[in-house]
């Protein structure tokens, strides 16, 4: 009904607390109130699934005492008639930092050249790493913030889980209401959650300097906290570890902020028996199946990418298809969670301007999210996750009186929030619209001489109305829910105005004013008739084509993941990389992902035939030294970081995977960088473009680890190095020390295990980890000594090559591979005796002083000395031409063509212990082959088809089709962006998409020496993705 309803009495409610805290003295006369209200005639949305018409909600002392359809209204209660209005539970933000002190950022910007900060700057009895802030108690540092509370209430929130967003472990979160009352009463659950992230935040400590370092730090801290429970004498009091253990029973929330990061976080949880609630990044829809497998509940931000200004074609080309598609599809993220049956909450946390929150929820709804799910994501789901659904999240007797009074159905575009009640306290949002004033009124203006003139006053809303006296008069109108101001000219042409002011009276207004000639008037306006309803404007939303989700999501992705077919390659020149040598006019049958037959005149009815006439088929290329497809490369903060693992942070979306397929590469050994002597654990992958990180991994391969020597590990280009070692002499001692510690550790474990099993009656062996601290760093070194993990060692000059072999021999193992090894030719005999493989560049030199003696004949000499020689890339571009790099050994040193090709096929397979699976064309091995247009050692040869496990991952013909598709799809979205701009839509300046190409870190420009900073940037990148 369009009429002014009786005005409410509670005009000026100061937010005095309903009941005083008894321990707090009162500096006045006690003023206890019950806060007893009955909200009548409302449509009550009790929860997402239950809506009651014409219902009553009764609250008292901040609690709901009754809610239902046929409830008697107690006469002691103040009645608030909510006819035509909806009452819905207010929202819960599970990812807030409301009322938290801002983390103090370090003043100095990151500077790679600065000395490392090897220890924590936190004073007190805390743990070793500054980024572990498990001891932060959210409730202790919380202080209500009226401004921020209002901004959240204005978008419908009543309750938030707040925590300090700083560090890798962030301590506890506390659930508070957004009432402007003393904190003692707003805290709903003091310790409600524990928080984690991959981002070290304000910590200035060097470690961790990479994503994989952050992962390792988390894993080690779980172990340390467990071990610390036994009160180890060496540790004294460690408040960080104590706090860590104390908060493990709370809901564990991990800020991951990106689809792959979500999965990485979940994996840490899996290892330690924890199911994190994961704060996502908004791009999860791109891999929703994988996300579903985490079984986690998610917290989703609604910070959709803003439309970019791409009118300038030169700018537009620098925005990737990935970013363009994400702009279009980001709104579908919540809907894709709903469709996949994954629990999720919505948060305004990452919005630049929280005012856009409800608009963005509506966009998600337009993109397929159900309203029911949207409301649940803002009420029941977060409340349930936090174990506070008994207190908030629905409108039920016994719960906190926190709800919204709104004008219509929630999430309707026209619906406005009138009031946001928090803990029984009323906060106005758009209360001036409480009464629907959209109607026509009789406006009667009475002069002092009692002559009255009547107009029609047609009110649209609180800011707009027109006075009609035959003509429509230019009218200024404003109504704030209480007071009204109207001014208009007496007739259309008049320049003077009649000015009226007044207040609400029954179904209209009453007041005084001044006539056009300045004389005093009295006036009133009474309801005449409802406003004419305008016809609905035609539905503007026509269905527009949306980008497709491909695997990977960016350019050159698959529409759906491929599977193996039987393939028969006929009549090719086959370079077997095996005893069989080079076979002319030969057929190769690939079946079920394996090489099924090699011979002449083969046939298979089910096979797709590829004519190899005039072409060359080889085993596909294996790159022993690569840095693609990973989110970070160097954990250079310490000299020994064997605890970090490249496999923890693979990046399956790296376009370099596809580019290298185009050069015939199918297997890459992804190494940690060379920033430190004992680097991280490596990851062997197959370039299965489109797979997730697990899908990339080469299954069943021996694990490896990267070591490095020389200039990089002694931080030669850093003018102020303070990280041991600073000389090659020191590097040797880093190795000695690390393995000695590992030996002692291994002995301690053995001893601990032995004592337990003999002294206890129960035969069940007790874990040695009760007495020995499990050390992930030393675990890896013990594996090396036990020949369960193998070293690939970045090395250049003969001194260090020799001493590294001697250290290894002292501890009873061998260096599996010397990589780079540019002075290998000087000690080829020693390496042969030691039993190492070697992997080198064909012709790199003079890029730094330790390669001044590098020679292009290195590979040839080492090969002639009987070493197993590989040619590797260490370079995302050169990896596409490894066949040509191998061919240079023919030029430099006269290696035979077959031997040269072996240096990028079977030789690296041997060095990586996978020669039983791949590396040559032999029946039973993986169907990893490349069809070349020409002799594979020729610069004119192009990989036409690159096949992994019998699947054609790169096809030069298909590539041409994809190019034109990419171009068409780019154009479609760019046109859409441009037309949005032309239509007056807001745009932000274009942002060039960044390609991150990581390198080993040892052959950079002057003063441009390492990738630690890049990995830092990558973390940033992920944090804002």
């Amino acid at each position, binding site marked *: 009904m369009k009429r002014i309803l009786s005005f409410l009495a509670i005009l000026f409610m100061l937010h005095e607390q309903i009941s005083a805290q008894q321990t707090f003295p009162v500096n006045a006369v006690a003023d206890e109130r019950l806060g007893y209200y009955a909200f009548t005639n409302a449509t009550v949305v009790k929860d997402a699934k239950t809506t009651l018409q014409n219902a009553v909600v009764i609250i008292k002392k901040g609690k709901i005492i009754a809610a239902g359809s046929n409830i008697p209204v107690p006469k002691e209660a103040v009645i608030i008639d909510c006819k035509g209005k909806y009452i819905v539970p207010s929202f819960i933000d599970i990812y807030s930092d409301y009322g938290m002190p801002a983390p103090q950022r370090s003043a100095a910007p990151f500077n790679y050249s600065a000395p490392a900060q090897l220890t924590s700057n936190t004073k007190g009895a805390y743990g070793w790493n500054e980024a572990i802030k498990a001891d932060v108690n959210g409730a202790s540092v919380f202080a209500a913030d009226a401004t921020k509370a209002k901004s959240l209430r204005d978008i419908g929130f009543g309750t938030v889980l707040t925590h300090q967003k700083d560090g890798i472990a962030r301590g506890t979160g506390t659930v508070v209401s957004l009432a402007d009352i003393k904190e003692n009463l707003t805290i709903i659950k003091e310790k409600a959650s524990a928080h984690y992230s991959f981002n070290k935040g304000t910590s200035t400590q060097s470690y961790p300097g990479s994503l994989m370092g952050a992962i390792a730090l988390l894993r080690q801290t779980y172990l340390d906290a467990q071990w610390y429970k036994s009160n180890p004498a060496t540790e004294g009091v460690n408040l960080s570890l104590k706090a860590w253990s104390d908060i493990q029973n709370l809901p564990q929330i991990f800020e991951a902020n990106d689809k792959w990061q979500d999965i990485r976080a979940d994996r840490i949880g899996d290892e330690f028996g924890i199911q994190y609630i994961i704060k996502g990044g908004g791009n999860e829809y791109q891999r929703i199946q994988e996300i579903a497998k985490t079984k986690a509940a998610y917290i989703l931000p609604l910070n959709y990418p803003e439309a970019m200004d791409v009118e300038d074609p030169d700018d537009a080309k620098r925005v990737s298809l990935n970013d363009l598609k994400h702009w279009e599809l980001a709104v579908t993220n919540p809907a894709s969670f709903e469709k996949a049956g994954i629990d999720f909450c919505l948060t305004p946390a990452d919005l630049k301007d929280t005012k856009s929150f409800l608009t963005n929820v509506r966009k998600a709804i337009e993109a397929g999210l159900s309203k029911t799910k949207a409301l649940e994501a803002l009420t029941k789901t977060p409340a349930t996750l936090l174990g506070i659904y008994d207190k908030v999240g629905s409108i039920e007797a016994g719960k906190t009186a926190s709800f919204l009074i709104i004008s219509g159905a929630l999430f309707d575009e026209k619906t406005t929030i009138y009031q946001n009640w928090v803990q029984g306290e009323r906060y106005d949002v758009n209360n001036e619209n409480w009464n629907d004033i959209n109607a026509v009124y009789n406006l009667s203006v009475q002069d002092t001489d009692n002559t009255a003139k009547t107009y029609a006053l047609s009110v649209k809303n609180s800011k707009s109305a027109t006075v009609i006296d035959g003509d429509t008069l230019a009218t200024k109108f404003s109504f704030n829910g209480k007071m009204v101001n109207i001014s208009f000219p007496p007739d259309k042409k008049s320049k003077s105005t009649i000015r009226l002011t007044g207040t609400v009276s029954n179904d209209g207004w009453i007041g005084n004013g001044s006539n056009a000639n300045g004389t005093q008037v009295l006036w009133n306006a009474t309801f005449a008739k409802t406003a004419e309803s305008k016809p609905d404007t035609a539905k503007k939303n026509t269905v527009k084509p949306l980008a497709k989700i491909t695997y990977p999501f960016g350019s050159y992705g698959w529409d759906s993941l491929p599977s193996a077919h039987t393939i028969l390659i006929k009549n090719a020149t086959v370079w077997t990389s095996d005893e069989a040598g080079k076979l002319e006019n030969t057929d190769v049958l690939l079946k079920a992902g394996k090489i099924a037959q090699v011979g002449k005149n083969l046939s298979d009815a089910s096979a797709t035939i590829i004519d190899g006439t005039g072409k060359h088929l080889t085993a596909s290329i294996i790159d022993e030294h690569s840095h693609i497809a990973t989110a970070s490369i160097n954990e250079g903060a310490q000299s020994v970081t064997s605890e970090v693992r490249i496999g923890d942070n693979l990046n399956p979306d790296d376009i370099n995977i596809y580019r290298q397929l185009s050069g015939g590469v199918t297997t890459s050994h992804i190494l940690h960088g060379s920033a430190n002597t004992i680097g991280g654990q490596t990851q062997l992958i197959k370039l299965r473009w489109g797979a997730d990180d697990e899908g990339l991994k080469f299954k069943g391969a021996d694990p490896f680890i990267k070591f490095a020597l020389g200039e990089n590990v002694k931080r030669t280009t850093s003018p102020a190095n303070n990280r041991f070692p600073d000389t090659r002499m020191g590097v040797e001692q880093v190795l000695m020390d690390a393995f000695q510690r590992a030996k002692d550790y291994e002995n301690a474990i053995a001893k601990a295990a032995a004592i337990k099993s003999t002294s206890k009656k129960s035969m069940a062996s007790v874990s040695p980890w009760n007495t020995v601290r499990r050390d992930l760093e030393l675990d890896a070194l013990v594996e090396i000594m036990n020949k369960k993990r193998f070293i690939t060692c970045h090395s250049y000059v003969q001194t260090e090559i020799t001493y590294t072999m001697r250290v290894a021999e002292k501890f009873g193992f061998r260096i599996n591979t010397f990589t780079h090894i540019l002075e290998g030719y000087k000690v080829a005999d020693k390496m042969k005796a030691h039993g190492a493989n070697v992997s080198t560049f064909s012709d790199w030199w003079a890029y730094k002083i330790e390669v001044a*003696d590098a020679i292009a004949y290195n590979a040839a000499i080492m090969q002639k000395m009987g070493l197993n020689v590989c040619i590797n890339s260490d370079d995302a571009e050169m990896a596409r031409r490894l066949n040509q790099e191998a061919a240079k050994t023919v030029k430099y040193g006269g290696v035979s063509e077959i031997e040269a090709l072996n240096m990028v096929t079977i030789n690296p397979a041997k060095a990586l212990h996978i020669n039983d699976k791949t590396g040559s064309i032999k029946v039973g091995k993986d169907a990893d082959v490349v069809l070349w247009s020409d002799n594979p050692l020729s610069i004119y040869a192009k990989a036409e088809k690159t096949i992994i496990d019998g699947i054609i991952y790169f096809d030069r013909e298909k590539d041409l089709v994809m190019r034109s598709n990419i171009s068409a799809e780019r154009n479609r979205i760019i046109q859409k962006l441009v037309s949005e701009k032309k239509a007056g839509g807001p745009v932000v300046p274009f942002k*060039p998409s960044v390609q991150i190409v990581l390198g080993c870190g040892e052959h950079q420009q002057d003063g441009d020496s390492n990738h630690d900073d890049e990995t830092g940037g990558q973390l940033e990148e992920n944090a804002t993705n």
Partner: protein
Amino acid sequence: MKKLTYSILFMFLFAIAATAQDDVYPTPEYKGLLFITNGIVHTGNGQVLEHTTIQVNNGRIEKIGTNIPVPQGDVKVYDAKGKHVYPGLILPDCDLGLREIASGVRGSNDYRELGELNPNIRSIVSYNTDSKIINTLKANGILLANVSPQGSLIAGSSSVVQLDAWNWEDAAYKIDNGIHITFPSFLPQRGGRFFMVAQSQTPDDAEKQALQKIEKLKSFFAEAKSYQQEAEHAQTNLKFAAVKGLFDKSQKLFIHANQVKQMLAAIDFVKEFGFSVVIVGGSESWQIAPLLKQHSVAVILGTQHELPATEDEDVDQPYKTPAALQKAGVLFALNDNMDNTRFRNLSFNAGTAAAYGLTKEEALSAITLNAAKILGIDDKTGSLEVGKDANIVVSEGDILDMKSSIVTHAFIQGRLVSLANKQTQLYERYMGKYGLK
């Protein structure tokens, strides 16, 4: 009486100098007759001549043909039967001799001076003929190089050197052939690698800043132009004097630029000052190739062996950029400026261009005659033509393809130069140690 026939087995060529680099000598001047007989001659201007002999006299090519008689007497004869004969390759832009070690050794750096307006800085005076890198280039057929300084706006002048000399004055082939400018980027700078910039630049700011710097350049040249008009200089300005050759086109203006907007601004320099402009870098030049042709702007491309500029770009875009320039008729040269391999793969960059759209002879021109034209030395070298310097390379096979690119002889101005270098010597040294052959 002495008819010398040199062995074509390249291994023996450097075996004579097996101890140290200091034993690799520049070859003394040779003024007599010299014949390279019966080879497959790639002239550098598109022609391939089978069974052809080149006659050299007093350091210059005197005759090329199939029926050239080789006289008895005191002449040198090199049998190139079945081999490929090419013009000496030209490295068109590099810091050879100015920077021995690419990174980490400040003392080896003489390629970048302080300041923004350094037209008077001259690379030639610091070109170190004793650089160990130089001899590795001759072994791969590179006989001439354009050595240029680097800098933030006007870096200085480059000079062309021949790679077999005792000192820079001997090495000089064309002095101060051009002025090098590095254009500012039109793209917003993200946080630097060392210092995280709190706020990224907006695209508008970046463009404005770039245009301001270009304005600064233009006003420099406008004043320099006026200065050249002065009958007498009351105040001598070395910087203005250094760019005199640009106005009479005796010098080229080398503008180092990759972005389309930078190159459009470069075209403006042609229009406004009438300079002969060469773009160095030009990774995006394929996008505006016809425009470059229209304004007679030449291009020295950076290395072909590069990743595409964006993830959406064709995976082989850098490989096929030369073909796009060729198609549009742009005069271009190829380069190898990889810090990790130090210029030695010039011919393989051309090989890649040939695999992706150029003919082999076009690719060869891009590292010989085109480069000579761009550097202003095509009157003396760049092709195997009568009257030009005898800068000649002999290879076992196709010089553009690494599996056959084995240089057996190289001649600079008619001198047979040594192909030995530090790397061949270390090779010999350790082959000897291990008793390998």
